[in-house]
């Protein structure tokens, strides 16, 4: 995590491209004309994005949003959000969504023939604390098929959306689980050229946060671009 990175050239290795032939949908949706380089100091990049929302404690426990408990392996996911100088990003809004334990999303367009779970929506949100830390309870999502290629399956993952200080730090990503046999053939995971950068999307199993008789702990730390951390929660309107 402390390897130096050199601007745009470095990002070509550690971020996915717009066009990645293995991920078929990129072919008609990724821009083809050259991108216009914005100066690194362009004021537009430092304009804040106001991704702020009221968050209730139950929003960070995806197993307690219905009358009963969802089926599946209970997990606690925690980690720290820092900027690229290593400073904690405080009060950052994290939005989460995921499939249920059977690999089915609570979404009308998901036609996978796996059961819906009446006790699981798969939606969460929370704010990082004063140390940039976050933690939420959920169930481990299942792998699911998609139609990208013959016998295509997505490795189990949780979608993360994060708001830091501005446009630069806006991030949507996916957290994976260690040891998934589907990594090798997943074009979305493998769209990131640099192996170390790819591997950092895989959470680590964590005894420290594993709760006896309750849930397995996974750790997933996140680095946002940009060095100005978001205002303290108390500054929010």
């Amino acid at each position, binding site marked *: 995590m*402390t*390897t130096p*990175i050199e601007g*745009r050239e*470095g990002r070509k290795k550690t*971020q*996915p*491209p*717009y066009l990645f032939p293995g*991920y078929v*949908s*990129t072919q*008609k*949706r*990724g*821009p*083809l*004309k050259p991108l*216009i*380089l*914005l100066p690194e100091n*362009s004021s*537009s990049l430092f*304009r*804040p*994005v*106001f*991704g*702020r*929302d009221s968050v209730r404690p139950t929003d960070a426990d995806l197993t307690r949003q219905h009358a009963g408990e969802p089926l599946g392996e209970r997990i606690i996911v925690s980690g720290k959000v*820092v*900027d*690229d100088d*290593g400073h904690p990003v405080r009060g950052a809004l994290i*939005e*989460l*969504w995921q499939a249920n334990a059977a690999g089915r*999303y609570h*979404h009308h*367009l*998901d036609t996978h023939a796996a059961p819906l779970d009446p006790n699981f929506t798969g939606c969460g*949100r929370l704010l990082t604390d004063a140390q940039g830390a976050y933690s939420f309870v959920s169930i481990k999502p299942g792998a699911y098929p998609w139609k990208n290629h013959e016998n295509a399956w997505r490795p189990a993952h949780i*979608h993360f*959306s994060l708001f830091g200080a501005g*446009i*630069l730090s*806006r*991030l*949507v*990503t*996916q957290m994976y689980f260690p040891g998934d046999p589907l990594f090798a053939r997943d074009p*979305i*995971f493998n769209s*990131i050229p640099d192996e170390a*950068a*790819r591997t*950092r*999307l895989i959470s680590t199993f964590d005894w420290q946060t594993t709760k006896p008789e309750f849930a397995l702990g996974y750790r997933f730390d996140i*680095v*946002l671009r940009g060095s100005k951390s978001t205002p303290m929660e108390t500054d929010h309107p």
Partner: protein
Amino acid sequence: MKLIPTASQTVGPFFSIGLAHMHQDSTKINSANAQTITGTVVDGDGRPIPDCVLEFSTASSFARVPTSVEGEYSVNVEAETTLCEVLLFMRGLLKPVYTQVYLCDAAKARDAITSKLVPQDRIGTLIAQPGIAAKQFVWNVNMQGDDETVFFDY
């Protein structure tokens, strides 16, 4: 020593599960104080993109809207806004595209600092057209093609 930022991944087709809570509720907007931008987001074959979410940021506001099954969106921004920073997320984009839209007359937009970086023949893709009523604008986004919208590297 800078840390390497976490890699981006696509929002996929089911982002509304996690993102809908912040979709703009246009029924709560006082239209007297707002401008409305509407438009269609289309792919390289000219087909509307029904699973896109757009985020409009100005100096003082933020609005997130999804596209409809017809690929159409509608967003309200504050009345004085002349420039929005826009991020688009969708299935098929492994990272968002970043663009801008000007809500002012074309001459003014062409004078704006950022647009000086943009080739003359593509500047028009960043300028919203006046709509049928006052304070209404139309701005379409073409992901590819002859009229591909200008996207910025950042």
